[in-house]
């Protein structure tokens, strides 16, 4: 028996609550999904001697990963320095400060990689300046996807066999990790990643992102492209509509990445009756009260006035310009395989 570092005080908040959404579609609704990878990464860092008592955790985040770290840091006596940007919700900002986090705001995008890169550049300075600091690096730390065995465990406990897993992709941790664990038992699991136009994660040319938490301008190492059977790109306006639908029809007050995933999952589930489908909803809607849940703000959002698409259009390449909900049959290929069009057999599934 080993004795290992444990930071489990908030463990009951880590897992999803399962909500039936009609047919065989089940929502895995998280209070704050990032608590799980954050706790796991910190425990491992302590075990490996990378994080010592009372030292400083440094990370780049404009959202939920920062909040998760702040909650854990205050519970277990670490200092926390977060590098964020103007997109940080002001209420979340206040909450982070109340939790004792030091929040540095970056206001100018880097020449390449936008604000995300600018945050990382600033972070590098802090990490080298602060003695004994630890950077979890959620985008590249393999412990991020490794942590999701617990989600796979809970899904199996409640549902038994899972046929399809759908979720938004940001760091890549939750979808890559959960799919991988489920496939050790259900090799036929169909995994669908949800991204947004302008995000480089699945090969779109880099563009301005208006959907916090979905996709990115930097490709994280934790996106394991070979886990995905299918990838969808949902525009911000389509995601916002779906977020409201999720709230109005099912009472679930979630963030817009959840809405994007719900849009795809609802469509896929309708077309595959009898399949047990799980859709991941990573966080609640509180951070978006003044944006996605604000009618005035929405009026100014691009495409909000348009009627949202009922189904995706099939595109042949992830490089294609995407002005509306689009999808590519990914077939568990590496990114460069998809971009070069290799292994791209017949698209018979497109009819479904």
């Amino acid at each position, binding site marked *: *028996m080993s004795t*290992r570092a444990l930071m489990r005080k908030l463990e009951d908040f880590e897992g999803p609550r399962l909500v039936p959404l009609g047919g065989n579609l089940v929502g895995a609704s998280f209070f704050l999904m990032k608590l799980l990878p954050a706790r796991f990464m910190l425990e491992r860092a302590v075990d490996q001697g990378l994080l010592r008592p009372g030292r400083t955790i440094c990370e780049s985040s404009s959202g939920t990963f920062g909040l998760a770290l702040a909650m854990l840091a205050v519970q277990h006596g670490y200092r926390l320095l977060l590098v964020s940007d103007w997109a940080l919700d002001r209420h979340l900002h206040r909450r982070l400060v109340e939790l004792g986090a030091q929040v540095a705001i970056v206001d100018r995008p880097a020449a390449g990689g936008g604000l995300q890169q600018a945050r990382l550049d600033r972070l590098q300075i802090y990490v080298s300046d602060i003695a004994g600091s630890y950077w979890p690096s959620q985008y590249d730390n393999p412990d991020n996807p*490794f942590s999701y065995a617990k989600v796979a465990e809970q899904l*199996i406990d409640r549902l038994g066999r899972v046929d399809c897993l759908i979720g938004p992709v940001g760091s890549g941790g939750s979808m890559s990790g959960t799919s991988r664990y489920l496939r050790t*038992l259900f090799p036929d699991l169909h995994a669908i990643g949800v991204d947004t136009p302008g995000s480089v994660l699945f090969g779109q040319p880099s563009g301005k992102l208006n959907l916090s938490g979905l996709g990115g301008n930097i490709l994280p190492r934790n996106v394991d492209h070979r886990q995905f059977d299918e990838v969808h790109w949902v525009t911000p306006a389509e995601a916002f509509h779906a977020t409201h639908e999720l709230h109005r029809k099912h009472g679930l007050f979630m963030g817009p990445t959840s809405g994007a995933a719900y849009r795809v999952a609802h469509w896929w589930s309708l077309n595959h009756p009898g399949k047990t489908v799980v859709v991941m909803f990573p966080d609640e809607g509180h951070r978006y009260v003044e944006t996605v849940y604000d009618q005035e703000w929405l009026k100014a959002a691009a495409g909000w006035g348009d009627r949202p698409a009922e189904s995706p259009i099939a595109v042949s390449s992830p490089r294609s310009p995407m002005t509306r909900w689009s999808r590519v049959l990914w077939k568990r290929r590496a990114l460069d395989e998809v971009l070069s069009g290799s292994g791209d057999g017949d698209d018979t599934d497109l009819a479904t």
Partner: protein
Amino acid sequence: MPLRAGYAEAIGHHGELVQGLFEDDDAQLRRALVSLPCRQLRSKVRFIANDSGQVLVLPASREKARRAAQLTLNAFGRLADGGNLAIESNIPLGRGMGSSTADVLASILAVLNWLKIDVASDEIMRLAVNAETACDSTLFRQQAVLFAHRDGMVLEAFRRPLPPIDFISIDTTPGVTVDTLEFAPARYDQLEIETFRPLRSLLRTAIKNGDAAMLGRVATASARINERFLPKPRLTDIETIGDRFGAVGVQVAHSGTVVGLMFDGRDPRASANIARAAKALQRSDFEPTIFRH
């Protein structure tokens, strides 16, 4: 005159359905397993008591069984109690089929039978682990358990017994024996350790629902993880034959040499499938033996 003899039997197993590292209630990691019991394999032990204060065993090579009987007498008998253990077992040695544990358990139970006392199963497990440093879960017949075999402790008791599993036994290296206790415990990496979480939950679900097919998936996943530590030659060939004839999965002796091709004991087609799979295995130069639940 008091009865001077005690008698007991214990069964062997065909390796494990799952073996790995699992969190206990305090979130600490413990090695644990679920054995696949095999009622046809038995160790039968007769204990003839005397006042010598020491225990002798036949065959004399079964030192762990002798130790187990001695420990049992030390714990529950009088100072002068001793006796002779006679062991009769049809469990193959060094294949990871629990021959040693069955001898140990039957010896403990035979002594207790002579002493005419009932002892809780966790007490028996502690004696067994003291006698041979590790144990298996064959003692638990009414209810399947995830058993910490080096701690002699139940990590999780499931709601029902294992569903009936018929299997074809294949010894992948008939000439080689593995000393279960000499064999260094697997050093699982982080991904493997975490993978045991979903395995455990499907194990729980499969037992609750009496679902042999899902149990087969758990066993197969555990067998594949074990390949890095004690590989079974031609395991994929066996799996391929199993897929052709409706096997629900493969399981292995994680510290032995045998592989079991598993079939759903409740499936009416199982008998025919097993016969055909056994023939196919023979054609591929395996030596299959069929065990019914």
